[in-house]
């Protein structure tokens, strides 16, 4: 047996591809050459190719076009408008139900008979009888409060809806109407408070259903005669004159029936339900709304009143055209109601402050909806009229006079006002907010809303300046940090974008003053997060942010997830622009990392925390102390101490220290002790990394660095550590994924390539390390036969390389590598040869023992290639090769490309007769 002598330089030259200079960089943006465009066009042509990046964009363009079309055409068909209103109403109902979810129990002061059924009704009867006997009024009143689960109540209402529908289909319309009246009556009881919005939604659905049934019936009567013949076809905008007497008679009957309901509330609801039917009787159906809205004033209960007005606003949208008069009356009446609710006299009536707050919050959605209806498609002139009618504006120019407004109403007005109006009247609105200060709504939130509205479309700079000046005056008077933050938040955007630096300073100072005065709470932190985030995203350079007065102080008082978000944002900014050189910045960022690290439990980290770990690692990697390498290493040591629980970071630390060492080496030998420190740092750090593959790679990397520095004993030690690390894989990791295993094999191969340049140790034997690696094959359970072949081949190749007179590569000219150390030493080559022979034998045995035929075939080919590359094919080797080829041929198809090319390689190296010839029969 004999190793094949190699001339690596000659081989490289013969295998190198011819090189030619390129004019363009392939990754640069293409110049205006038409070629590239042609490619694009071809892409467009193929329809079956789905480009995930391109197609949604195309859709988006189409969508935008739709939106623009919708806006430009002022006359949207009434059908489409109706559809929109139906959709909006559905969304609104869902919002109501979600905002005020059904609580477990509903206590109803007077349990209506429609809700109590069968068994329960009996119970009630007996108690009332009993009470009548007693004739005790006090007891009577107490017993009247009944409790029922919310779910029961809801399901009973659904049943009622079905009953009404069933009665209608059975031509028993009187029952339908009677039941509907009973259902509407349920809304008279507002003692259920929280439950009222849900009750409203359910009742409104039933009313709408009844309204539709009546509408359809009368329409049917108008369009078809008694015998089913068609009388006419009612267009969408039909007139009263087109309606026959019979249909009118029926319609009139419905209004008479509904009008005879004794109680006010169900009477209004039922008339609203059939409101569109007025169109069969006269051409100005909206006239009824003016009367109905005034009738609603008779409902003294504020909750019942506002929800009735809400239903009115909803029903009014079903009419073809409708002015906003009744809506404005509604809002004005609601203002009076609210003033009454808020007056102290009423509060003394037994309504606690909490209850009042709940009441206002229950009323709020109705104001919101009605306001939306008022400002729907309102022109600027109409807005002026609306504001005057709401008692705010004096005339079309002075849209905001000095009359205050109930703050919750003002809030929703401000929400709906057109942006141009908000922009031009910002200062006036600000004044209005200032003197509209009552308990119905937090004044600060109105200031805040104005800020957001101003951000939508910037007014002129002088208005903006005046408004911001005023706001700054307002906030300086606010003592609570929470209030301060609420107001200031939207204005920070305006201030940043208009470079109002002095205001920014005032705000930051204001925050820091209030934050330091007393302990801040969760709510404040969220507010602070929003403001700091705005500042961070506005500035490009972190240094500018740090230079802002009070920024760091404010950052210091933050905690929790908001703090983490801000810290991460800062790190993101810090690490996106290359190296971080400034020591002060490094120190600040280090402290931020510490805060971030303390805020996250990295031991059990998952998901989001991974991002934080990545950012800290990236920061460590980006820090550059330049020539102060000692300082840099100290920094790494500090980091290891501070962020010990981040696994990923430790890997970064090793890379950084290795990088430092190589940087020092470039300066010559004078920093050798520093390099040693670096290597020592790495060596100490690696074992604390939990992942074995990472450890292995880092050992190899550090060993390379040590070798580069000429520190052979260090290098040897690190290689040993790498191998022992490999040996302990089995002990720690129960199961390895195929990817892990693959990585492991690659690392072992890399280790073998490193060993080419590590000088052999004659005391331990030249093949000591190789033997250690080989021993893994038998000791490690994760190593399958296929991997055994790959590792064995790597060892054989390594042995063959080590035997050469000139190695393919060297570490450093100052280190004597094996080719120089053992030049012409026959015992050295002999040891390698005998070791290789041993490996080769094992190799063949492993292949023979492999049970799977296909695997056996490819393993044989792999071994064969390795042998052909490593040994001279002589009489010793040739039988081995032939045997392997035979194994491959018997298990693989003769057309197998790998088999063919392997045979070719063997043929080339065979001095005499071809293997293929000798084996063909």
């Amino acid at each position: 047996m004999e190793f094949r002598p190699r001339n690596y330089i000659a081989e490289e030259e013969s295998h190198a591809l011819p090189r030619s200079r390129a004019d363009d960089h392939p990754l640069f943006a293409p110049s205006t050459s038409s070629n590239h465009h042609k490619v694009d066009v071809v892409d467009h042509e193929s329809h079956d190719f789905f480009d995930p990046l391109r197609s949604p964009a195309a859709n988006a363009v189409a969508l935008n076009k739709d939106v623009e079309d919708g806006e430009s055409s002022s006359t949207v068909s009434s059908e489409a408008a109706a559809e929109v209103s139906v959709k909006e109403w559905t969304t609104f109902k869902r919002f109501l139900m979600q905002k005020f979810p059904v609580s477990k129990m509903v206590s109803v002061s007077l349990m209506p008979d429609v809700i109590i059924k069968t068994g329960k009704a009996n119970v009630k009867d007996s108690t009332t009888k009993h009470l009548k006997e007693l004739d005790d009024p006090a007891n009577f009143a107490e017993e009247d409060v009944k409790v029922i689960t919310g779910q029961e109540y809801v399901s009973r209402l659904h049943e009622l809806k079905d009953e009404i529908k069933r009665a209608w289909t059975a031509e028993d319309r009187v029952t339908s109407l009677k039941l509907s009246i009973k259902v509407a009556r349920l809304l008279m009881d507002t003692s259920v408070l929280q439950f009222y919005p849900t009750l409203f939604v359910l009742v409104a659905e039933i009313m709408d259903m009844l309204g539709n049934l009546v509408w359809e019936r009368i329409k049917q009567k108008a369009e078809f005669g008694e015998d089913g013949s068609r009388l006419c076809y009612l267009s969408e905008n039909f007139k009263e004159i087109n309606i026959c007497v019979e249909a009118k008679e029926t319609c009139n009957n419905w209004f008479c029936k509904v009008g005879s309901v004794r109680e006010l509330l169900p009477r209004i609801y039922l008339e609203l339900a059939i409101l569109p039917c007025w169109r069969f009787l006269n051409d100005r159906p909206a006239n009824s709304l003016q009367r109905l809205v005034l009738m609603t004033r008779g409902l003294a209960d504020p909750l019942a009143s506002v929800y009735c007005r809400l239903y009115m606003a909803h029903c009014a949208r079903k009419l073809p055209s409708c002015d906003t008069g009744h809506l404005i009356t509604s809002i004005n009446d609601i203002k009076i109601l609210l003033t009454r609710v808020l007056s102290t006299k009423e509060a003394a009536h037994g309504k606690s402050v909490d209850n009042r707050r709940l009441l206002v919050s229950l009323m709020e959605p109705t104001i919101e909806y009605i306001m939306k209806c008022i400002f729907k498609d309102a022109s600027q002139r109409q807005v002026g009229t609306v504001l005057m009618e709401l008692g705010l504006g004096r005339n079309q120019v002075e849209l905001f006079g000095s009359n205050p407004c109930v703050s919750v109403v003002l809030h929703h007005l401000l929400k709906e006002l057109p942006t141009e109006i908000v922009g031009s009247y910002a200062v006036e609105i600000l004044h209005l907010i200032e003197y509209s200060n009552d308990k119905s709504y937090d004044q600060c939130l109105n200031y805040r809303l104005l800020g957001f509205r101003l951000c939508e479309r910037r007014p002129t700079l002088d208005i903006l300046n005046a408004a911001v000046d005023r706001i700054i005056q307002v906030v300086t008077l606010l003592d609570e940090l929470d209030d301060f933050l609420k107001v200031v938040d939207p204005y920070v955007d305006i201030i940043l974008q208009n470079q109002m630096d002095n205001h920014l300073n005032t705000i930051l100072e204001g925050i820091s003053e209030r934050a330091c005065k007393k302990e801040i709470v969760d709510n404040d932190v969220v507010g602070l997060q929003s403001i700091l985030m705005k500042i961070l995203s506005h500035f490009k350079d972190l240094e500018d942010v740090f230079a802002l007065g009070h920024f760091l102080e404010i950052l210091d008082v933050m905690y929790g997830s908001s703090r983490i978000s801000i810290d991460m944002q800062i790190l993101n900014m810090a690490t996106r622009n290359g190296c971080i050189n400034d020591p002060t910045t490094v120190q600040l960022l280090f402290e931020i990392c510490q805060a971030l690290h303390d805020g996250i439990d990295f031991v059990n980290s998952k998901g989001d925390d991974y991002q934080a770990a990545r950012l800290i690692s990236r920061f460590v990697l980006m820090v550059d102390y330049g020539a102060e390498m000692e300082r840099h290493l100290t920094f790494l040591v500090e980091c290891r101490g501070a962020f010990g629980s981040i696994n990923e970071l430790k890997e970064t630390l090793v890379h950084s220290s290795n990088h430092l060492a190589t940087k020092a080496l470039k300066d010559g030998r004078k920093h050798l002790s520093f390099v040693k420190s670096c290597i020592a740092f790495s060596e100490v750090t690696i074992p604390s990394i939990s992942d074995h593959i990472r450890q292995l790679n880092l050992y190899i990397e550090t060993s390379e660095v040590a070798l580069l520095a000429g520190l052979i004993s260090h290098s040897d030690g690190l290689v040993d550590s790498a191998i022992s690390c490999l040996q302990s894989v089995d002990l720690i990791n129960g199961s390895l994924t195929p990817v892990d295993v693959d990585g492991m094999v690659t690392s072992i191969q890399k280790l073998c390539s490193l060993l080419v340049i590590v000088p052999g140790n004659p005391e331990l034997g030249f093949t000591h390390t190789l033997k250690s690696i080989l021993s893994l094959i038998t000791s490690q359970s994760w190593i399958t036969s296929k991997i055994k072949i790959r590792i064995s081949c790597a060892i054989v190749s390594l042995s063959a390389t080590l035997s050469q007179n000139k190695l393919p590569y060297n570490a450093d000219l100052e280190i004597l590598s094996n080719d120089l150390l053992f030049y012409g030493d026959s015992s050295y080559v002999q040891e390698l040869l005998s070791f290789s022979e041993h490996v080769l034998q094992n190799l063949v045995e492993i292949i023979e023992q492999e049970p799977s035929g296909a695997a056996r075939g490819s393993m044989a080919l792999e071994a064969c290639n390795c042998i052909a590359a490593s040994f001279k094919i002589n009489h010793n080797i040739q039988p081995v090769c032939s045997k392997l080829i035979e194994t491959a041929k018997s298990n693989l198809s003769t057309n197998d490309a790998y088999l063919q090319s392997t045979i070719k390689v063997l043929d080339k190296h065979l001095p005499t007769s071809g293997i293929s010839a000798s084996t063909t029969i």
Partner: protein
Amino acid sequence: MSTVEIKLSRSNRIYRPSEPLQGKIVIKSSSSIFHYGIHLTVNGSANLQVRGGSAGVVESLYGVIKPIKILKKSQEIRTSGRIGSGTTEYLVTVDIMRGYLHKSLSATVEFIVETDKADLLERPVSPEMVVFYITQDTQRHPLLPELKSGGFKVTGKMSTQCSLLDPITGELTVEASSVPIHSIDIHLLRMESILLGEKIISETSLIQTTQVADGDVCRNMTLPIYVILPRLLTCPTVLAGPFSVEFKVSVVISFRSELSKLHKKSDPTTPRLWLAMETLPLELSVCTRRQQFIV
């Protein structure tokens, strides 16, 4: 099985004196039937009807007072003959005599005769409103002490001359009230009187209640009054010698009081400590808008 049915030409069954009563008699029979004649009779009379529940003077007189005949007209439409099976329609008619072995087939249909307003009431429907004014001092019955001392004031106006098809309209304002208001209702009352010998017997019934305020409404806010008249329970005001039908409208304010809870079932128009009221005469006339309905 044979049935007979009268179908009038107008679905609202309203005719005027000058107009003929038109319609169909529809006889449905599975087999042919023999009859001795078909008669159509029109009856008009003023009856005193006693409804279940009402008690007192009128009930005792029920047997005594004969219905006052206004109109009776009978007409033979067909002499005896035979009607074939299936559905047969005759223009106008009813009452089919079938000899002593069979029961006569008959059907009755109510129809309404409406006269033009000029025939009955000379005065036109006036759009004028009657102003009312209710305070603790306008009440003739005792009031709760706190109500008497604290006082209240409800003002308003109302149309008291109405056509049957128009609603009673008006408005009402609570200007002040020391005791919270429980409810404000408009009661519609009908007074029927009959001359019996020398005596006039009359009965008042509450025919409709319409709530205009539910709870302690805001002060100085104008509330509309809008009461649709119940068609089956109202007629034009009649003052016709032996009998008369008149109407009244009553505004009743009930104040919040523990006492009222004990008297839930009582007549809402009876004066009580917690009630204040104002009753106005109401004159109803036939519709002036009819022309637009019947084309």
